[in-house]
């Protein structure tokens, strides 16, 4: 039941309420799969279908990367976000949560704050490209959810990221 709920959170955000039972909240908390590897979110359909979340994730590119301790968007990041903005404008049924992350070379609290800065930088850029602000949320995972687990720069570079995770439907 728990894992079914977790999936449902992404497929139909409205199910969230049905899945969480307030009386038993401690033991049955539905948690959006936090920063899971790939962060597919509402991914479905085929990569060949340009309207599918899989296409968004793989062809458009769901993530941008940052330098150490930076939240500045470089040219590559802006290009990816241009693609994301275009896709989101063409697919108005989707909302998105932008997850900000940091590498492990930092203290825990600071990295939460830094991840929020990165997520917000991506969000502000998408808004500047015409995506409605109420479709875009942010969350920071700090250094808690690395995708790469080696302790060298090649891995750190992939962990310093902002990932745009799609969800179906405007939930207000």
């Amino acid at each position, binding site marked *: 039941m728990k894992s079914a709920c977790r999936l449902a959170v992404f497929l139909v955000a409205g199910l969230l309420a049905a899945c969480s039972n307030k009386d038993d909240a*401690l033991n049955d908390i539905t948690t959006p799969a*936090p920063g899971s590897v790939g962060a597919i979110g509402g991914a479905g359909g085929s990569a060949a279908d340009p309207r599918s979340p899989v296409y968004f994730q793989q062809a458009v590119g769901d993530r941008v990367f940052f330098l150490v301790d930076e939240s500045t968007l470089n040219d590559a990041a802006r290009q990816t976000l241009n693609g994301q903005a275009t896709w989101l404008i063409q697919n108005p049924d989707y909302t998105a949560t932008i997850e900000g992350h940091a590498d*492990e070379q930092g*203290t*825990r609290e*600071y990295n939460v704050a830094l991840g929020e*800065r990165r997520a917000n930088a991506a969000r502000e850029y998408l808004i500047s490209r015409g995506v409605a602000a109420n479709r875009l949320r942010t969350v920071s995972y700090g250094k808690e959810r690395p995708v790469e*687990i080696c302790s060298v720069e090649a891995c750190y570079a992939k962990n310093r990221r902002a990932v745009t995770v799609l969800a179906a439907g405007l939930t207000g």
Partner: protein
Amino acid sequence: MRRAVQSFLPAALTALILPIMMALTAPTTVSAQQGPLRIEITDGVIEPMPFAVPDFVPQSEAAAEYGTSLARVIASDLSGTGLFREIPASAHISTVSDFGAPVQFADWKTINAQALITGSVALSGDRLTVQFRIYDVFSGVEVGSGLQFVGTTEGWRRMAHKVADTVYSRITGEAPYFDSRVVFVSESGPKNDRRKRLAVMDYDGANIQYLTDSNALVLAPRFSPTGDRVLYTSYESGVPRIYVMDVGQVQRRVLETQEGSMSFAPRFSPNGRTVVFSQAQGGNTDIFSMDLATGARTRLTNAPSIETAPSYSPDGSQIVFESDRSGGQQLYIMPAGGGEARRISSGAGRYGTPVWSPRGDLIAFTKQNNGRFHIGVMRTDGTGERLLTASFLDEGPTWSPNGRVIMFTRESQGTEGRAQLYSVDISGRNLKPVPTPDGASDPAWSPLQQ
């Protein structure tokens, strides 16, 4: 004797009858309040003081198990400081079979036991009565007067810690700290699928209890000044928010912070009525305080930089925090109500996670420099910086209740990287891991239990 309580039942926290302490009448030897038996911690002790603690004399067969267990925990507490060294029972010449009989000092001198702790334990139903005395062997006198503690069998370890605390305090002149707990984050799973849940245990790793399940990511729990509540950050709503949990009841509520914001890095004020924390919104993190009774929020910083990791001074008048307003993370102190902040850190590298010592004299911090992490301390004006540790990743110091020991998180590097708790004393000696069944991070030491 360690028990891992796998449920959320807070039995060990609530069912204890607190030890009753009463002085015993003086024995046949002369009582010496200020005996020559003394460890000055600030002196940079090199040779630990040898001591002996024979099994406490059981007053019945049923009490024998406790007689041994009490002595073992007392020995572990004292040896664990690095200031004392136990002379094992196998080397003892005398056996203590009568707590009231005169001590054969010559036998203890022969094995070079400078301090001797003797005790008795009586069991009546689930009620334990523990008596003990501390001797300066070479002077042939008692150090202070004997004491008696009464408690339940369930609280036997606490009684052992109380005895060891008395020995530690009388010999070092420092405030005690063994009868304390640590709340922390228990970790399992690989780095890219780490599961975290809140746990609480005795300071030495015994009596672990879990306070949450691992469905939601949790970070950085902090005890209230009386140890009955814990603040922590959880992602159970999808974004980081601050919760306050009643440890005895394992009930929690969310702190109602700004709608649409993320909140984290909470700590109690010294009177337990206010929480100071960080709130992130729109790409900016600032420090706020909240009155727990009214929910009223006050903004304490207002800068485009990251302000986080606030910690009150013990008198509640000031807050030390970290900010990257100058470019990298540095430490600052401001009035508790907000206002102008002065920077106190000045060395090379980045400084974060400051924590004010309970004695008020020092601030512990995490330092990053040249790709290494350190736990260090400095005076509150930023002078006298000393680094106590160095590793791939050390962070998040917490103070023992007496301000003499620091516990922190050490994470090893690489794909098999794992977090573990360590402790070190403020002179940088006695660095050692704190035993936990799984990975562990973000320790926060409780005040001394009442």
